[in-house]
């Protein structure tokens, strides 16, 4: 079985552990073994070390990458921010020997050395390019036929493409997540704000009102243009924003609709017939109804 080092980050294990559970349960069904990276820390998040000092950022990121290097595996992470931070750090270290030497001096305080032997992938990249849509399709017990998905790939999965091993043909018109949803039988009509930001992260912590307006624009574009049955994302930050801030917008009377939200592997898990109480159990925007519809007898594949 091919192995990948599972870099969890912060939001997935602490705020959305049902996403973590969906990784642990779906990947083995696709022939991939999930290897824990014991002792991993925060990537570190954009608002911390990267906003203060480049070498401190690279030391913390490379420490995390060395955990995979010692297990002799490549990294996969399901958090877009972590992916962006780690991929950019790796790109800088691998293209600037002087910088790498400076960072390794810092790392030596933690008795570690970065070599560059492990690659950094996003969960979506592993699913799309390493496993492939055929295997994903073959692992499904339930089909999403005639269900409409609004896809939300998330920013750090798309830009800057120069630091990524796996790239979209045109990151401003991304297709990977659409293809992953098609593999489960769903439709993914285009909507005009598909590639726009959800407002989570730095924007939300700096000015919640502007962040909510950014989300509202995007939600209304989805609702008015394609009226989706669900929103599907491959970014844990987008997941939290679409799920929890959607409820905030409803509570404030800013929107009058509710669209269930899934991280892609949660949806995959449901299609594989896995237990929703483990893989899709924590949300602010209700999704019980759509889960029952997905795992209904009529949708069973032979």
């Amino acid at each position, binding site marked *: 079985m091919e192995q990948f080092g599972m870099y969890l980050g912060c939001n997935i294990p602490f705020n959305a552990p049902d996403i973590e*559970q969906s990784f642990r349960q779906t990947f083995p069904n696709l022939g991939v073994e999930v290897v824990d990276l014991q002792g991993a*820390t925060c990537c570190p998040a954009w608002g911390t070390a990267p906003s203060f000092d480049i070498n401190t950022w690279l030391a913390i990121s490379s420490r995390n990458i060395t955990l995979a290097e010692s297990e002799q595996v490549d990294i996969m992470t399901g958090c877009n921010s972590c992916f962006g931070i780690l991929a950019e750090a790796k790109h800088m270290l691998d293209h600037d020997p002087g910088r790498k030497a400076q960072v390794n001096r810092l790392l030596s305080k933690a008795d570690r050395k970065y070599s560059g032997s492990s690659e950094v992938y996003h969960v979506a990249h592993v699913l799309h390019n390493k496993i492939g849509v055929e295997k994903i399709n073959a692992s499904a017990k339930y089909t999403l036929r005639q269900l409409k998905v609004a896809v939300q790939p998330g920013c750090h999965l798309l830009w800057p493409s120069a630091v990524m091993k796996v790239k979209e043909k045109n990151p401003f018109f991304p297709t990977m997540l659409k293809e992953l949803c098609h593999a489960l039988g769903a439709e993914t009509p285009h909507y005009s704000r598909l590639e726009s*930001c959800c407002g989570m992260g730095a924007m939300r912590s700096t000015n919640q009102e502007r962040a909510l307006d950014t989300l509202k624009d995007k939600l209304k574009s989805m609702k008015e243009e394609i009226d989706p049955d669900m929103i599907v994302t491959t970014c844990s930050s987008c997941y939290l924003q679409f799920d929890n801030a959607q409820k905030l917008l409803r509570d404030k009377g800013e929107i009058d609709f509710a669209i269930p939200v899934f991280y892609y592997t949660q949806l995959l898990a449901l299609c594989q017939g896995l237990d929703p109480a483990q893989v899709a159990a924590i949300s602010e925007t209700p999704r019980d109804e759509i889960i029952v519809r997905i795992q209904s007898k009529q949708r069973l594949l032979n």
Partner: protein
Amino acid sequence: MQTVNLTQMDKEGIAEKVIAMGGEGLLNCVQCGACASVCPVARAGFSLYCKNLIKKLQSGYMEEILEDSSTWACQACNRCTEICPRDVKPSEVVFAFRRIQAEELAISTSAFTPLMSLYETGHAVYNKRSKELRKKVGLPETPPTSIGDPKAVAELQKILDDSPMAELGIFLNLMSRKQEK
């Protein structure tokens, strides 16, 4: 037409400083506006974003904008860096400016809690309810990260203790508490 020699304009050494802090492409910018056309921070109406920040820095403004916390709203999404036809890497200029702001402690208040949490637990984001949530979905209460791994936290603290971040005094309370133990 008047030509502007950007390098000669940098009397205060502002461009030099931004470049040293990671904004290496600053002087490549000709203000075409491609970055602003895709910037979520510009679209959301924040006062400083990639394009106008670059113009201000190129024109020798620093003190005037140092306290503007809107640069901390940048998502580091890198749309600007992807689309820039002059290889300015505008997001790196924004982060270089943030690092200069940080040196002067002109830091968004929202930055402190994650920094403290990072130092203490190895995680910038932590949720006290996480044990309950993890149990509910059938996972061990503690993930295999630094949260349950004092050796990992100690390694991280060794990196942070000697960093320019520690010199700002951000971790002082936490560092002295550690020594008391």
